[in-house]
């Protein structure tokens, strides 16, 4: 049992072999000082959350005009750690002066803020209980692609950088259990990331493997935008901070893109469970390499620690490989967008979507009119005796109806409205004719049929 393990990095080895020799005291001190980090990173043109105001003493607190605060902001202790003492405000309460609303809709008054700042100044949230500064900064806006997975708050991306090479990464998603912070020991979700592509792989909560988010969405296959840019930022932060073993925390702002949040001199080890792989092997592979440029570091990370199999097959056949369930985006009328998950059903000809989804996509009127005529003409029992020309004539006036379809399935035959919309799947935009049917009792609101699968190969697990 006590033999040296060669794959997993434990706390003892992390502290003794990686943090102690590589993270010098001065570098650690910088990592703990958020305001100084912000200044230094900003100077090196690394995007950071904009500083609104720092408060360094009770006197400054007395003189601070809370009216000058924007509608949304984050209040942080400068020497805070583990996400403690951070207060996030989403907007002002309408009709009341200096009352703000938090993500859980609880209210924060000016007095609450003052109290919180006093606690921060007293050093209550600082690592060594020493007096501290408080500061207000810009709140990061949730990137749209992450929205379905997040209960509240903003996910961030943790990257371990060693010897100028990003060795492992995970996305941390706040959950209801974690109270909106992305802290893993509080119940946040950790999702492993493929280093080559920036696509998520396996996930954990409380160090146990999970497949889906609490609201039922698959956690694998999420594409992190601007992945190479994120890797570059992480390496740059290591060069600036001189933390040889660094945990870089980067968030993605809806408008600004990747924003560097925090340097971490003692990054946790659960990232190994999130990726279902040990760190020690990866650290050993980059040990002693001479890496001169940031680009080289990024290339090494992508080549050494990325899965390549899928890419290879895709290159051979020219077709993209998808899973039996895929994340898709549907674009309906007036550019209405809905992100959801679809079942890939090679047994079906047509692609079908659920009625409620169709309504959201702007086909409420289409459905109403179609059903009205359908009922009037006596349902399928009567309609089936007419020829297709007469049927077409009947439904001609239904707005935005592209066609109608007779679908034979195991449940019998049905007559359905067909509309034309766009589906984006695995980065490919597919113009599609889809039938609308009540799928409320079914697990997936959408099935993608053969007609729209010509460019894909389906991997069955």
């Amino acid at each position, binding site marked *: 049992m006590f033999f040296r393990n060669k794959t997993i990095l434990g706390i003892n080895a992390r502290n003794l072999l990686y943090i102690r020799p590589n993270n010098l005291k001065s570098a650690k001190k910088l990592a703990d000082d958020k305001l100084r980090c912000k200044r230094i990173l900003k100077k090196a043109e690394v995007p950071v959350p904009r500083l609104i105001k720092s408060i360094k003493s009770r006197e400054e607190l007395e003189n601070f005009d809370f009216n000058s605060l924007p509608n949304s902001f984050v209040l942080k202790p400068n020497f805070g750690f583990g996400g403690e003492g951070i207060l996030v405000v989403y907007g002002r309460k309408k009709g009341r002066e200096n009352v703000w609303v938090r993500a859980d809709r609880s209210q924060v008054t000016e007095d609450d803020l003052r109290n919180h700042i006093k606690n921060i100044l007293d050093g209550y949230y600082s690592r060594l209980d020493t007096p501290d500064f408080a500061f207000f900064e810009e709140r990061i806006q949730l990137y749209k692609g992450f929205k379905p997975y997040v209960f509240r708050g903003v996910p961030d991306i943790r990257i371990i950088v060693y010897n100028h090479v990003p060795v492992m990464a995970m996305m941390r998603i706040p959950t209801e259990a974690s109270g909106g912070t992305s802290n893993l020991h509080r119940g946040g979700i950790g999702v492993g990331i493929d280093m080559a592509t920036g696509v998520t792989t396996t996930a954990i909560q409380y160090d146990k493997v999970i497949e889906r988010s609490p609201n039922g969405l698959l956690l694998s296959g999420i594409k992190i935008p601007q992945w190479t840019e994120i890797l570059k930022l992480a390496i740059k932060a290591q060069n600036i901070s001189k933390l040889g073993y660094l945990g870089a925390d980067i968030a993605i702002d809806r408008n600004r893109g990747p924003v560097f949040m925090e340097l971490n001199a003692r990054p946790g*080890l659960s990232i*190994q*469970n999130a990726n279902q792989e040990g760190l020690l092997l990866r650290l050993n592979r980059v040990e002693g390499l001479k890496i001169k440029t940031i680009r080289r570091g990024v290339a090494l990370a992508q080549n050494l620690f990325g899965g390549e199999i899928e890419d290879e097959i895709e290159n051979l056949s020219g077709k993209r490989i998808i899973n039996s369930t895929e994340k898709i985006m549907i674009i309906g009328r007036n550019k209405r967008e809905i992100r959801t998950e679809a079942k890939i059903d090679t047994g079906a000809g047509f692609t079908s979507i659920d009625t409620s989804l169709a309504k959201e996509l702007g086909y409420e009127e289409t459905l109403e009119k179609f059903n009205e005529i359908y009922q009037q003409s006596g349902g399928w029992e009567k309609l089936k005796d007419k020829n297709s020309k007469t049927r077409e004539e009947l439904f001609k006036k239904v707005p935005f109806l592209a066609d109608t379809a007779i679908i034979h399935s195991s449940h019998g035959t049905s007559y359905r409205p067909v509309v034309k919309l766009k589906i984006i799947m695995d980065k490919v935009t597919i113009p599609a004719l889809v039938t609308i049917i009540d799928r409320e009792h079914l697990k997936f609101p959408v099935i993608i049929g053969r007609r729209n699968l010509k460019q894909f190969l389906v991997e069955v697990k």
Partner: protein
Amino acid sequence: MQYLNANWFIQWIVDKGVPESTVILILMIPVVVTVIAFFRQIVGIKAFGIYTPAMITFAFLSIGLQPGNTILNGAKYGIFIFAVIVIVGILSRTLVKKFRLLYLPRMAIVITLVSLATLAVLVLGGSLQRTGLASVSIFPIVIMITLVEKFVATQIEKGSRIAIILSLETLVISLVAYFLITWPPLVQIVRDYPWVVVLTIFVNIFLGHWSGLRITEYFRFGKLIK
């Protein structure tokens, strides 16, 4: 007299007027802290640092060594008081939370409530004819009450779940250390060969260089180990 077969070194200190029990207790401190270090580095049980479990161990010892109490009683009453303090600590924290007070005044109220609850425990002990519990001296009680600050601070910083886990870990380590330092053969060894205590330094040098996985990590990363 049991002093007769004691080591000359201890005998020499005792002759200077230091009580023998004090000498043994002080020599046991290195043993206790080494046990705690072992639990942290090899087993992976964290507890509240090194100070709190060490203090709790000696609080147990102080109860157990009281006239009329046995070693087992020390553990029993110790666990009871420990549990009461943690539970009342949790309750009063949730109570005080509503007032949105600054940290120190808030903590002061929590400790006040815990103190009163401890007093009630002693009275209860007396009325149930448990004189061993009723007559617990002030030292172990004060020590255990200070546990509340550690507990509440952890609760705020890392959540109730972690705070409760760390309390249980503290209790486990303290109990192990307590039974170890009251184990007659060990007491005998320390009395006869007090220099063995110096060996703990070498044990700790080993522990300080140990970079292998902790036992708890075999469970945490179980599936990844091939």
